[in-house]
């Protein structure tokens, strides 16, 4: 008999987390423990979901990622704000409920421990892929999407229901659950939103890579296949330089290629560094897939419901990733039908979309986007380029994936239906506005799963030759990884911020209220990076491609027209009404705004008559909207 029962054990950890929250240096780790670990830990022990400690660890963090936002959301909506007390109160109610319902039995122990040595390996891969890379290259809000997601995290931590951080006139319609998780850590952990995004990459990387490993072990039972898949996802599968070598164009691993923005994330270690950007959306479908494989293998009902639950939540994290999963799932069902293995509960998965439909579509009523999300079929020339690029970026994984399909029945049954549609869409589909990442990234993950199985399937050969083959594969994928790192150290990040932006952002953070709204010129990356990215404040209007999926183009065009008119002409009275209508508290005059005004024959100095200047550098001026001084 253990001295501690399960109840004592949970209460002790809960107490430790609360104590940590009261001690400033331990506040963030305690918040991580409370939000990102304990909810999943309690659930997985309650339902005895895993016998292996490593799987239980990955599962605890993964389930917490789904649970914590859901647990805090009702109270946050009730109080209209995400306060520290609201987070702690919501989670404590859940823990106490779980502990109360728990029989006073001995502590849960774990039987299998075959996968534990992988823990340091996983942590090493994540730490070198995130911390080391970032220490060497630096990190900042260098693109419109980074800025937007940071804005969402900040908005979710201060306002509920949230406004769109780039549209002061809109409720937020972008699926924001994964950012709510980061917002909870930001609020409770007392760490800046930017630092939180860097740190959650470690958590997401751990769940993501852990799940990849778990799925492979669940499908094939082979440890090394899982480790290879983790390698492929951490180091990449870049093969361009090798293909060029074979073509006689020279063996140059530092061959400078520019795969473009979306591909860059999908194909390389970036997906891990920007762990808060791509993996969170895929973690949920992967969890659904993992539980579903287990359900099909062992027929336990709890696995079915966990899979269904993850699937139903998936659309709240990202509907495009959910759709990618459902396309693969439909193909899987089709194949099962052909093999006369159909089971009626499987159809319930289509009902997993209902919670999203009921809340998102009926409540928020997004407008039909003007641009279609995917143009499915490209012209022959672009398909040719796509195939060439796909081969260049994945050459090493493709033959291995093919080998997996030939030699492994499990890979054919479980992974082919999910990988195939995404692979076809990646090659044949033509994307607009970076949406390739929605198809490419999940496709790459399933391809890496297959390639991992393929390595083990093909290389069941004598040891020295096997090790040689391992060395060849690593010899192909590691040099381009080193090139990426070297190149990034040398050239820095595109669109890195200048000193004036950094100083202005620091001023904004310290001298303006948290719920301030800034007026900038629409689509100005310079201004948005300064205010929304580093300054952590809301905008009247940010970037059109963040909004045109959820609001009609006519409305957006009207707002853009009003802002352009504000900066270029218009009488003072209409300016006053405009500012009041969009709740703008500050006007930001950066290089883009000043250039625009000068192009339209306006002097930025004329604003100062009614709007006092509170900050000025040669390129940037911030004006305060003062009701009393207005006309």
């Amino acid at each position, binding site marked *: 008999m253990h001295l501690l029962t399960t109840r004592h054990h949970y209460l002790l950890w809960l107490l430790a987390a609360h104590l940590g929250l009261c001690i400033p240096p331990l506040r963030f780790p305690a918040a991580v423990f409370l939000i990102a670990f304990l909810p999943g830990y309690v659930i997985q022990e309650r339902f005895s979901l895993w016998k292996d400690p490593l799987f239980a660890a990955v599962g605890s963090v993964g389930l917490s990622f789904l649970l914590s936002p859901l647990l805090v959301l009702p109270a946050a909506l009730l109080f209209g704000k995400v306060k520290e007390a609201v987070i702690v109160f919501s989670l404590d109610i859940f823990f106490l409920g779980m502990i109360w319902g728990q029989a006073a039995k001995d502590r849960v*122990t774990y*039987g*299998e421990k075959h996968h534990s040595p992988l823990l340091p390996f996983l942590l090493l891969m994540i*730490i070198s892929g995130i911390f080391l890379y970032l*220490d060497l290259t630096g990190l900042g809000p260098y693109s419109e999407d980074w800025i937007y997601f940071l804005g969402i995290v900040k908005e979710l931590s201060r306002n509920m229901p949230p406004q769109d951080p780039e549209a002061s006139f809109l409720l937020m319609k972008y699926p924001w659950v994964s950012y709510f998780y980061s917002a909870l850590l930001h609020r409770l952990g007392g760490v800046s939103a930017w630092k939180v995004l860097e740190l959650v990459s*470690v958590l997401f990387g751990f769940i993501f890579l852990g799940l990849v490993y778990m799925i492979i072990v669940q499908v094939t039972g082979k440890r090394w296949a899982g480790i290879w898949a983790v390698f492929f996802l951490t180091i990449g599968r870049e093969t361009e330089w090798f293909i060029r070598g074979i073509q006689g164009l020279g063996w140059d691993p530092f061959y400078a290629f520019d795969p473009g923005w979306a591909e860059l994330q999908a194909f390389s270690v970036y997906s891990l560094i920007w762990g808060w950007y791509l993996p969170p959306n895929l973690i949920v479908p992967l969890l659904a897939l993992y539980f579903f494989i287990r359900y099909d293998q062992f027929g336990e009902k709890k696995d079915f419901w966990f899979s269904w639950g993850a699937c139903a939540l998936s659309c709240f994290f990202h509907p495009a990733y959910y759709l990618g999963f459902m396309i693969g799932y439909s193909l899987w069902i089709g194949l099962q039908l052909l093999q006369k293995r159909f089971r009626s509960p499987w159809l319930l998965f289509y009902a997993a979309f209902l919670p999203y439909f009921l809340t998102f579509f009926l409540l928020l009523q997004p407008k039909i986007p003007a641009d279609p999300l995917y143009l499915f079929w490209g012209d022959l020339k672009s398909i040719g380029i796509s195939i060439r690029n796909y081969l260049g970026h994945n050459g090493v994984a493709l033959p291995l994936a093919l080998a997996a399909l030939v030699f492994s029945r499990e890979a054919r049954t479980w992974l082919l239906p999910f990988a195939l549609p995404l692979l076809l869409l990646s090659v044949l589909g033509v994307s607009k506005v970076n949406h390739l990442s929605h198809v490419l990234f999940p496709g790459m993950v399933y391809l890496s799963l297959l390639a991992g199985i393929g390595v083990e399937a093909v290389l069941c050969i004598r040891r020295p030759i096997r090790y040689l083959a391992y060395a060849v594969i690593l010899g192909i994928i590691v040099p381009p990884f080193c090139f990426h790192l070297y190149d990034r150290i040398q050239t820095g990040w595109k669109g890195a911020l200048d000193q004036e932006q950094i*100083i202005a952002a*620091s001023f904004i953070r310290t001298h303006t209220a948290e719920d301030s709204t800034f007026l900038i010129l629409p689509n100005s990356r310079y201004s948005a990076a300064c205010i929304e990215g580093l300054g952590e404040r809301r905008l009247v209007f940010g970037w059109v491609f963040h909004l045109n999926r959820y609001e009609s183009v006519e409305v957006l065009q009207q707002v853009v027209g009003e802002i352009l008119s504000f900066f270029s002409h218009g009488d003072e009275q209409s300016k006053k009404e405009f500012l009041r209508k969009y709740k703008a508290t500050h006007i930001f005059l950066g290089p883009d705004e000043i250039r625009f005004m000068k192009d339209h024959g306006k002097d930025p100095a004329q604003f100062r008559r009614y709007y006092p200047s509170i900050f000025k550098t040669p390129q940037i001026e911030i004006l305060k909207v003062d009701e009393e001084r207005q006309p």
Partner: protein
Amino acid sequence: MTAFFRKKKKYWAVIVIAVSVFFWSLSEVMPRLAQQLDEKGYEEGRKKSLGITGTLTFEEQGKKKKVRLDPIRFPLTRQSHPLLDREKFSLKIIALLEVKKAGLYWIGSDSDDGSWIRIDNEQVLDNGGLHPRQEKTNLMDLRPGIHPLEIRFENRMGEAYLDVFWIGPEGVRSSLAMLPHPWGKESAFFRRLGYLSFKIAQYWTFLMLPVLLYPLLFPVRPSEEKRDLAD
């Protein structure tokens, strides 16, 4: 290996925690120590009315030489000092910057060839490269007080020139208000050590703390553990 750690659980836990605490503490203490040295340097420099000094590195008869250059006056040219009258050399100046009024300052250098300025251990200006006299400035938000300052200058060929200046909140351009820092080297060393300790602590904690908590949170059944140890 895991069996070893499980067997020596207590020692293992003590080592993990002790190393974490040691490096976290070092990362906290070192910058404070450096600050103390800055203040001490400030007092000493004023009392003894010392001049600004630098470390000059150059090659002579195939050997690298380091000599102290004392005093340094701006603008610096090849004619400023007999030791500077050579083609290739590099110079490192560690001093203190005295800021009297808070606000935005333009920090600048005019150099032939490269020069770099670090304030508060952060690079604020990069005027590097092989070039004729070239002026560069960058903006900085400075608080009143003393700030550690480091200037690096290198001449790769031909003429040499270095001048450093700032433009304060009043918009007046003047020479940087530099003060001698007799403890500059030691202060810079402690700051670097503090940063290094912080990084070691960060990597160590993120790697080792989960490994330490792992057996506590996910205990293995005793029979399994025994079997594992026997293996």
